[in-house]
């Protein structure tokens, strides 16, 4: 291990209403792999955005090789020798490898045209250092996920960076591809690069990294040499000592859950999840808990009939007995609030009334002719608006005119009106302010008390703990643990990062 190449001193950054980074300092040496870990919202992304020149810090010093730097733009960060390998693969599938690598600035010939000969030579060189012998003219779309990841890395290496930041690079890789990626990272390290490796998966830290730094609430919670750390100590640092003893949620169960209304057996979607077994009873809220990329949203969408499944069976209670349903029928029985309100939750230009009644139109038909009974539609919408306390200038105004919390209540109303036996909610309070969050959470609990079976996904552990009656923990596309209401924050987090694998009962 040689000299310190990157030093961050007391980095601070606030966004309106939130302190994202509250004085973070870190050092990384050339020839070292530093793991950066932290729960969602700990400040990892903001810190990396500061380093990448995307976000400007409020205070602090960034030193590279002992010289203080100012990073005002991504281009400046690149010139200073900082490169990113992003989690989201940002490649143009129909173009070749060489085009993708040089798209932001091709070498030119004297006549002004692209110097492909030079570009391809350099491209092959870089790919070869990664152990890749793919012709530079190959199109991206004919490559597998692992090779695409290599192209991403090659693109980052093109500018000969001293500091390379990997942001969750393994989320779409198979285990063989992962092994190859790790070998590449080790060889980068041997050549003297400084590698910062961001991940959710603790096993990767032990397999690859030299040191680990844990962030929590915008501060450095602790860390050290990986050889001296273990799963428990990392999880404890992520949580904070005081949190460990903090009392759990106080929601009391009014009544024991009812009968099983949804039974899922060996559900599978290739590449996303497999062997998913679960049961949902009426009157209970089950937290589907897992990290981003664990497969939790994929399971939810497949259950709701929005995406295909490759195997397994889904049964719902119908007229007193469990009955197997086809994927196409799922929408009749299972309501879904997706994680993207704007993208697939609302008809923005449409009125509040029409947004609420969208899923229940057949039940609103007039008795005499095949027209919608608008009087009844308005009455129903009005009732829900009042019940959920939706604040609007009137139900005929476009739903886009509402605040985020009220928009979410409109989506909730849509399903309340249809009233399917099972409701799945993916991040039901994302992007809402604290007041609206609490209100939606209270609604979820009262819905369950009225007999719905609810499956909830949330990235916020406090939220999922405050509303769930029990938990299913997802790790790499499988349910790895089934925990009861008394589960601790620690046990939830450990299971989600794969630290303990509890067999399903």
């Amino acid at each position, binding site marked *: 291990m040689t000299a310190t190449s990157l030093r961050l001193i007391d980095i601070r950054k606030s966004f309106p209403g939130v302190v994202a980074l509250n004085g973070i300092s870190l050092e990384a040496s050339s020839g070292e792999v530093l793991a950066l870990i932290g729960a969602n919202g700990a400040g990892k992304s903001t810190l990396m955005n500061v380093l990448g020149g995307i976000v400007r810090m409020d205070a602090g010093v960034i030193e590279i090789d002992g010289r203080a730097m100012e990073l005002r733009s991504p281009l400046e960060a690149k010139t200073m020798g900082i490169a990113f390998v992003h989690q989201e693969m940002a490649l143009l599938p129909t173009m070749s490898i060489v085009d993708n690598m040089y798209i932001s600035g091709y070498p030119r010939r004297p006549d002004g045209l692209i110097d492909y000969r030079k570009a391809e030579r350099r491209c092959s060189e870089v790919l070869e250092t990664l152990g890749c012998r793919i012709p530079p003219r190959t199109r991206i779309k004919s490559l597998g996920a692992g090779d695409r990841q290599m192209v991403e890395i090659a693109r980052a290496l093109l500018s000969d960076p001293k500091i390379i930041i990997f942001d969750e690079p393994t989320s779409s890789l198979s285990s063989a591809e992962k092994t190859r990626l790790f070998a590449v990272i080790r060889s980068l390290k041997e050549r003297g690069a400084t590698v910062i490796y961001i991940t959710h998966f603790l096993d990767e830290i032990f397999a690859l990294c030299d040191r680990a730094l844990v962030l929590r609430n915008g501060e450095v919670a602790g860390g050290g040499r990986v050889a001296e750390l273990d799963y428990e100590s990392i999880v404890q640092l992520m949580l904070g000592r005081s949190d460990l003893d903090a009392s759990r949620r106080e929601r009391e169960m009014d009544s024991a859950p009812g009968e099983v209304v949804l039974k899922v057996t060996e559900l599978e979607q290739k590449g996303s999840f497999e062997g998913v077994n679960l049961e949902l009873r009426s009157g209970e809220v089950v937290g589907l808990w897992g990290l981003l990329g664990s497969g939790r949203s994929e399971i939810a969408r497949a259950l709701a009939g*929005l995406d295909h499944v490759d195997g397994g069976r889904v049964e719902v209670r119908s007229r007193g007995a469990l009955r197997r349903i086809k994927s196409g029928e799922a929408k009749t029985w299972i309501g879904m609030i*997706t994680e993207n309100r704007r993208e697939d939750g609302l008809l923005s230009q*449409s009125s509040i009334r*029409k947004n609420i009644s969208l899923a229940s139109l057949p039940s609103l038909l007039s008795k005499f002719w095949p027209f919608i009974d608008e009087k009844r539609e308005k009455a129903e919408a009005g009732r829900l608006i009042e019940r959920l306390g939706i604040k609007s200038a009137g139900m005929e105004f476009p739903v886009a005119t509402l605040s985020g919390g009220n928009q979410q209540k409109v989506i909730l109303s*849509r399903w309340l009106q249809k009233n399917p036996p099972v409701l799945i909610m993916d991040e039901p309070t994302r992007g809402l302010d604290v007041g609206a969050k609490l209100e939606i959470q209270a609604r979820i609990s009262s819905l369950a008390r009225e007999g719905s079976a609810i499956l909830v996904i949330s990235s916020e552990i406090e939220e999922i703990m405050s509303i769930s009656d029990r938990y299913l923990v997802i790790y790499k596309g499988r349910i790895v643990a089934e925990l009861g209401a008394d589960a601790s924050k620690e046990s939830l987090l450990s299971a989600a990062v794969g630290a303990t694998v509890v067999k399903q009962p």
Partner: protein
Amino acid sequence: MATSTEANALAKAERDRVLGRVLPIALFVAIVAFLGFTVNHFFTVNNLLNILMQSSALGFMAIGMTAVLITGGMDLSIPAVMALSGILGAMFMRAGGNPVIASLIMIAVGMAGGALNGLAVAYLRMIPFVVTLSTQAIAMGACVMITNSVSVLGLTPSFLDVVMSRILGIPTPIVALALVAALVAVLSQRSIFGRWLYAVGINAETARVSGVPKKKVLLGTYIFAGLFAGLAAIVVTARLASASPTMGQEGVVLNVVGSAVVGGVSIYGGSGSFAGAVLGAVIITMISNIMNMAHLSYYATLIVKGLVIVAVVAIDSRSKKA
């Protein structure tokens, strides 16, 4: 802060709504006023009925196009399918067939063409533009091959008599268009299919998540457009007392799209009214008439209509972006 953005959004929504309603009507009034002042005897019953008569087939096709545009799609094949329907129905009559069955054949052929488009768009997830351009080529090719570019004459006289008859002095196609347009306008607001149509156009994913059978809605929409191509075929065949491939010539597509767009239908999907589309058909017909009277060539007319459509779409885009 939140309240002021909400107020802005409210104001903008209201402005868009008013603009969408007022623009076609304002254009209509302006053209009528212009014609009233410049043309002698413009405001005679005969002249007005004449314009409406010329608009009626276009109005039927514009209703079909409007449904497709509301889903965010496009149907370039409507005029060609209309011509093919007319030709097949006319040949059936020429061979001595019953005119009622001939009319049903025209409608059925139209719906079959629409089904072809709808299946490709909804179930094969093909791009509407490409699909309907191909259908247009296929239908047009079939028209020419079947007829050898010779008009099909010798239609059953009773067919012409009934379609071109007058109800209370008003030509039947005008009455039929008015009734059908009113029915479709009500259905679009009050039927489940109507709601689904707009929902798919505004946000297909939201519709799907909410349990709207998106594919069936799309298929149904293209079949609906085909049905109206068939209705238009009946009117055009009767008016010309013949059927020929030129019924579906390239200028007609422009007129159909123009009618819908001038009538306030957004080519981005999700908004537009059927009554507006019929009004648009009348506006487009009047523009053609003005050009005619000014002794401008057919091709100059194409340029003017093209410019009008681009202008209206530009306004539409502006209100979408803001």
